[in-house]
């Protein structure tokens, strides 16, 4: 009787995304969902952080201390001088959009489309004046970072590490 009541309690508890592996045999596997799957997102907002970094050539190597954890990933770049020009942040709920001004007359729009326990789907758009440079939808792992790079700026290029925390 107790076990039956317990099972009923389990059946009645809905709204959590991660299925129970022992019982659900046909459930989709946890982790990164394929495109199109509508994952149930927990309540809350996504903290989106955008760094604006200038990479250029210099006589001596110099890396901004704020980029210490990321420096290892710059090894394939030919530049040796990395300077953080600014850090922008926003708390976005599902469907919310934030706009960030970027050096060189550019603008970066980020819209959180939906998020799950594991990852978040965001739309990233970059403009230069009225010209759209890129419009992409990216599924990024929770707490992960991807980098927009390449816009020219004062003899070097801009790197825009974008991190999604929640």
């Amino acid at each position, binding site marked *: 009787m107790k076990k039956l009541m317990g099972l009923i309690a389990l059946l009645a508890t809905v709204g*959590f995304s991660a299925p129970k592996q022992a*019982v659900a045999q046909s459930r989709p596997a946890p982790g990164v969902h394929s495109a199109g799957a509508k994952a149930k997102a*927990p309540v809350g907002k996504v903290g989106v952080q955008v760094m604006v970094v200038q990479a250029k050539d210099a006589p001596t190597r110099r890396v901004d201390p704020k980029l210490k954890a990321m420096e290892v990933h710059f090894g394939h770049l030919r530049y040796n001088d990395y300077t953080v020009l600014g850090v*922008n942040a926003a708390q976005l709920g599902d469907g919310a959009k934030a706009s*960030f001004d970027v050096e060189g007359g550019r603008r970066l729009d980020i819209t959180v489309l939906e998020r799950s326990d594991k990852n978040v789907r965001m739309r990233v758009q970059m403009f230069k004046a009225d010209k*759209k440079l890129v419009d*992409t939808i990216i599924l990024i792992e929770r707490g992960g970072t991807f980098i927009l790079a390449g816009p020219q700026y004062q003899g070097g290029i801009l790197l825009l590490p974008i991190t999604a925390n929640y």
Partner: protein
Amino acid sequence: MSELSLTRLDALLMLVLDEQASKQEHQELLALADAEPRLAEQRALRESLRAALVDAALDPIDVVPQVLAALAVEDPWQSISSGLRDAVDGDIDLADGIMAAVGGAELPERRVAAVLEKDSVPTADEARGILLSAMVDGELSREKRAELSEALADDGSALDQMTQFADLGRVLRTVVELETRQSNLDGLWEEICLQIGVEDPEHVPGWEKTAGMLRAAAQEHATLSASEEGAFTAAIMNGIPGQEHLSEVQEPEREQAAANNGFWRLMGDPRSLMVAAAALCAVVLGLNFIPGDSALPVDLPVQASDPVAQLVENPDLGTSERTAGMTEDHNHAEVEELESGHDVTVHIMAGMEGAPMFLMIDEGDEGVTL
């Protein structure tokens, strides 16, 4: 007469001597003189005083000294003149001037003897000198003073001398007042510097050496070298936290409305209600649910559209912020859709071994080189 009246009488006499008394003060002086017992017997003197003050028939300066002498009032100038006499080097006998002036007048010896009450009769010159000295010094009695004043009344030269003494006293008093007043010493040192040839009033002799040592010490220890300055500046800049610019967030309407009604939204959510009911059942029945319990029956129908819930301890229903740039091995990303502008090329560089994905944007101006 009371002490106060006598003082007032004396003061009025001084004013008359200084030619500063008003007509009202003249009248007051005459009234006090008439009431003074010591002048009661000096009727002629009082009449002379009245003639001088009211009728202007006589010069007050010629009369006032006689009144003073008759009163035997201690002239306040006496103490000053005595002090001056003591302070001045050399012997200045004020009586000499009077003696020289009155040298031609021969006082009756018998008067002199009577006045001095001495056994021996001095010579005329000696007598005159003694008398005048005694009178100037205030050593004569009232009666003797009065008698001598009567004798000097006929001696015009003696009276002239006494007038000169009065003028001299006035001048000396003015000089003493000028000398004893409180002076403003501001600017005095600058004037003295000019007189003694010192160019800088603020100059302190002997300070140059000490000032030089202090200057050298400050220049040695209060400056930073180029490398020290660079390290100092870098330490400050590194200590400044990263500036986060909060951008404008555009919230959709449904999100905004729901955010303003969190509690009721939670309660109105059927999922939340069923969770609460399940928790109540678990508490009532005392169940200990263990995930992965293989003893559960597997033939119970499970609909794929209703995913089985997993009880999670301490569910994270809020957001957590992490330090900017702290990328760990959670950088897996996929590009689901991509659209670029005209003449813009985007290259995707997938991250290997946890590295972040790079989207290289070539805006078409000069091309992108990595």
